[in-house]
């Protein structure tokens, strides 16, 4: 079932195991006003890796994620995602960079004026999928996170854990090469958090590169990922 949802990754000629999926070198980020958010960051995440970015709030986790998807630009240094230099990307190319990611947010960012199905279908609509093929994919994604029976429900009627899983379904429906989660378990009970952790593990097992920014210790002991720790905008240790 799950390999059926993700063959695009294996077919993408650029995602070879020889090339790193993400590679940062000497990345600095200073916000207007002078605050130094990131200080000489450099690391590589291989294709198919499961990596956690940890650190206290203010350590630079959010800034790092924003740089990866082109919300912010680095002050200097290079960020290569899947062979593309994000730092020098033209504004009109940014949407296409973002389609390589599946984004999972702490606050879900669901649209409350449409059903669960409509939310998950959004990335496919954006990239111009046919309605028929799209519907099949949407149901596969909903099934993967265990929400198929709620496809007609409005997001507001779902529990916090269900909303987070709906957000995950939306992130995987277009079969991205990289799953990027920002504090995915921040608002959840331990049981729900474990469920989410298992989902990440299963995605990673079929070859998706999974990057999670979190300070959830339980999730760390559950998944035993590679850890990239940040402290005050610099790398604390590279495991």
């Amino acid at each position, binding site marked *: 079932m799950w390999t059926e949802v993700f063959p695009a990754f294996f077919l993408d000629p650029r995602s070879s195991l020889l090339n790193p999926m993400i590679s940062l070198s000497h990345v600095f980020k200073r916000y207007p006003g002078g605050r130094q958010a990131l200080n000489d960051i450099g690391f590589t995440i291989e294709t198919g890796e499961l990596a956690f970015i940890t650190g206290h709030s203010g350590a630079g986790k959010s800034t790092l994620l924003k740089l990866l998807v082109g*919300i912010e630009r680095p002050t200097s240094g290079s960020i290569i995602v899947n062979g593309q230099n994000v730092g020098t990307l033209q504004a009109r190319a940014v*949407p296409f960079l973002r389609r390589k990611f599946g*984004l999972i947010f702490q606050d879900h960012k669901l649209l409350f004026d449409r059903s669960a199905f409509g939310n998950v279908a*959004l990335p496919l609509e*954006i990239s*111009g999928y*046919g309605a028929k093929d799209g519907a099949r994919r949407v149901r596969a994604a909903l099934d993967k996170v265990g929400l198929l029976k709620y496809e007609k429900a409005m997001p507001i009627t779902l529990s916090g854990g269900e909303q987070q899983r709906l957000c995950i379904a939306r992130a995987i429906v277009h079969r991205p090469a990289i799953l990027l989660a920002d504090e995915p378990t921040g608002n959840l009970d331990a049981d729900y958090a474990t469920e989410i952790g298992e989902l990440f593990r299963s995605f990673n097992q079929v070859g998706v590169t999974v990057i999670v920014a979190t300070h959830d210790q339980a999730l760390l002991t559950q998944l035993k990922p590679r850890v990239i720790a940040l402290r005050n905008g610099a790398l604390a240790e590279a495991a």
Partner: protein
Amino acid sequence: MKTWLAQHGRCFGTTFVKLARTPLGSVFNIIVIGIALSLPVGLYVVIDNLQAASGQLSAEPQISAYMALDASRAETAQIENRLKQSPRVQRFRLVPRDQALQELKQSSGLADVIDSLPQNPLPDAFVISAKNNTPQALEALRDEIAQWPRVVHAQLDAAWARRLDATLRFGRLVVLILGGLLALALVAVTFNTIRLQVLTQRDEVEVIKLIGATDAFIRRPFLYYGALQGAAGGIVAWLIVSGGIWVVNHNLGELSHVYASLFQLKQLTPGDAGALLLLPLALGWFGAWLSVGRHLSLIEP
């Protein structure tokens, strides 16, 4: 191409749903646009019809020349001869004073009053058409005839027609200015509507930007909304003007019956109706484009 069409089709559908979901607000906006558009269009119809009517009334300007009241038959015949020989006169018609009195009696219903007059107050008159109908040539001819012996007065009948023509031309200018201003108003109304929409859908815009929507994709529903609203306003304007013409014609029926002349306002042609649909559509699109470009750039995730 197929996905492009599908995306546009879906977008058109959801825009329609969006319009229908807030019926009251949409309807009032559309009515405002419709009324604003119907003003210059209605004025245009009135002026267009008046112009057509004035064309029927005086196809060509004429000079009327009046003899002195005590001019003799011979003197009148002399002027008649001169007119025959003049190279500048196309044709002319003599209205003898007796005949003029008879006509006045018949047409005015003042027979009793006229009968009671001690003598005929009307002079012999000539109605003259010139070969050259430019205003300068006509005035020169009039001045010449006025100096002929026993001609008391010569006047150019086209003066009032020219005045009407100038007034109508002024009216057209007013229509143009009014139309321009109200087109601007349409753009402004759309601008504001779209601004509010972008702001209320801020979260949605932010999310779809985050998951990889291009600016064109985000802009599209707003552009459709503006265009659709403009076109609907155009349809309302068409209904208002057509209904107005129908009502006026209905009532003009009695009026023109009394005056024994058939004056009816013409309905808008299909070409006019098409312009009334497409122009507001384009203006609505333009207003939305301005607004969306301005306000989307303010929303960055």
